[in-house]
């Protein structure tokens, strides 16, 4: 953008800042327990999460049960991003005016210290990721966090030891795994649809539990789906960004 415009762009920015400062007066005081946000919809979540949705962690209850449709959308956003990266960078033919890209990060940093340290860390990272998913109902965490940590662990392997060493995952396979993960989510919803309930209503699941416990299992299934999808897509994006996606 030429300097002329960027100098003028101060005007709307300043105006925006003043407007934002001005309206801050009308907001409820931070921490006010009587603010509309804290008194209208959310009390029900706090009171019912454990008894009705089976999860003491209210964030997980809202995420995987009350607003599970949003979370389905969120997982689809991730999948879209993975497919988008594949369309943009993967499997496209290099034309004559696009030179060979020498700077691919397929080698890894390779120092012995890094290698030894990461060998120590990675099993714990992976274990922790699984713990985070399974215990998402009673402590902070859930499918998305677990998937992100798991993917970060795998990325650590690739960064230190090179792409060939850490769980080789071809781009096409990663997409299929991600779709399978989301399909677990979607399938759970469709199952309740087929059994005559509403989409994603976990009360319909054919398991020998009732009430909160049944819903807890429903949302756990869904979280596992999210975990698989998130791990696969984050790895896919990482691979595409570092080395392109060779056929």
């Amino acid at each position, binding site marked *: 953008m030429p300097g002329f415009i960027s100098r003028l762009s101060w005007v709307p920015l300043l105006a925006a800042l003043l407007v934002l400062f001005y*309206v801050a*007066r*009308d907001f409820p005081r931070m921490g006010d327990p009587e603010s509309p946000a804290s008194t209208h919809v959310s009390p029900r979540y706090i009171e019912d999460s454990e008894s009705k949705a089976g999860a003491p962690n209210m964030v997980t209850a809202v995420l995987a049960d009350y*607003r599970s449709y949003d979370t389905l*959308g969120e997982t*689809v956003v991730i999948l879209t991003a993975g497919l988008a990266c594949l369309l943009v960078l993967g499997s496209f033919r290099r034309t004559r005016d696009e030179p060979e890209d020498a700077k691919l990060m397929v080698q890894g940093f390779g120092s012995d210290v890094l290698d030894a340290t990461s060998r120590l860390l990675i099993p714990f990272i992976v274990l922790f990721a699984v713990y985070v998913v399974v215990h998402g109902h009673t402590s902070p965490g859930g499918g998305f966090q677990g998937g992100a940590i798991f993917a970060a662990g795998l990325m650590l392997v690739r960064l230190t030891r090179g792409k060939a060493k850490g769980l080789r995952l071809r781009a*096409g396979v990663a997409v299929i795994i991600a779709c399978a993960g989301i399909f677990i989510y979607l399938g759970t919803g469709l199952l309740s649809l087929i059994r005559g309930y509403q989409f994603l209503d976990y009360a319909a699941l054919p398991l020998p539990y009732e009430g909160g416990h049944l819903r807890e299992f429903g949302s756990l299934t869904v979280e596992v789906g999210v975990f698989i999808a998130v791990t696969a897509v984050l790895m896919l994006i990482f691979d595409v960004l570092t080395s392109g996606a060779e*056929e």
Partner: protein
Amino acid sequence: MMENAPVLILLAPLTGALLIPLLGFRFGRAVTMASLVASLFFGLSSLAQSLSAGPVHYHLAGWSPPWGIEIVVDPLSGVVASLVSAMAVLAAMYSGPFLAGWTRRRAGTFYSVYCLLVSGLVGIVITGDLFNLYVFLEISSLSAYALLSTGGSRSIVAVFRYLLIGTVAASFYLLGVGYLYAMTGTLNMADMSARLPNDDVAVLVVAASFIVIGLAIKAALFPLHGWLPDAYTYAPGPVVGFIAAVMAKVSAYALYRILYYVFDPVGGPRQPIELLGWASVIAVVAGSLMALAQKDVQRMLAYSSIGQMGYIMLGIAIGSPLALTGAVLHVINHAVMKGCLFMAVNGVQWKVGVFRVREFAGMAKRLPWTMGAFTVAALSMVGLPPTAGFFSKYYLALAAIESGHLSFLFALVLSSLLGAVYFFRVIEYAYLKTNDEPIEADAGTEVRELDASMLVPVVALAALVLLLGIFNQTVVTMLVVPGLPS
């Protein structure tokens, strides 16, 4: 099954998008067509349900709103959702020959993202929850970036800019929703509408303005249209017809829904709506003027879209029943005719390889059906009866007179005249001029029509333009008027 139709409108394309990779990227086109036809079927059946028995509310996960998320299919959202799926079916049919030379995986990925785009757009239309709308807005935007970026290196630069501006828009929208949440404590549209304070609080005005800014960027309203011309000009043939036809319109629809179903149209904040009105008047004129200056047909259509989005926004801003009828009718009509124009022009480009107005000389002899469809849609854009475009402009003009804003009427008439100039220029070249400078010596008069799978959607859309015009009265009384806010 049928009581689940509202959610199946969205789930059909979503399942299709997941199935294509799961089947190893095979059968991309077949799965896409099947899932989109299913989506159209469910869309039409829930529309019929809402017309006969009132709005359909579907509570997801079995939680009643405002605690859970609900899907609302009333006559308005039913019409728009069916429009989106119908255009998607035709565009999927049209895209076939373009993708013939692609690798299996790339074509499969393309179709999968295309299904995701449709599910994102449909999700925006049918949701009854403000935050859920944001999620689907992001799905549709991300998949649109991906699809538009397949058009070559210039398109990638345009798409990067679109991505930045689009994310700013989404952030503005989300901040506006945050302000509303701070005021009311709910995200459900109907519940929020009941709980919003009825006086002019500053927060309310600012929240409404942020939502208007965010969605107006996505709808490419004039001063915020920067991303659109380049993104559409360099867009790849198989999708530009669909994206240009419905994407901006879905954002305009979302804006309409929030302004008239969440905010109280009488007691709510007026200032953002006033601003919207004047911005759209300028958009109507400026879009047409800029279209006039273009030598590239695709770019000309892109600028003309900016003007046409101004029409829709103008109707929303005036807000009388007549104006809203015109706006909704123009959403339908413009989607059909712009889809037809973009598909016809890209067909010409694909077959003959030309985009400039001058190179269209003698094109009517070579591609008679395509150019015939182009002409019908162009006449409709200009607003000649009995094509569809005439009637939506007629309603908007009546509304402008009724509201006493004669400058609005003046802008409408001026833009129609300008539209006549720039469209007749293309038609003149195609029908009357012969090729002065024959590039391919003997190919000049040879008839080489498009493949059937491309020609059928183009001609079907042109026929739809005429049908929408001829049966305009039925469309308005049966579909548009029941969807007006009470």
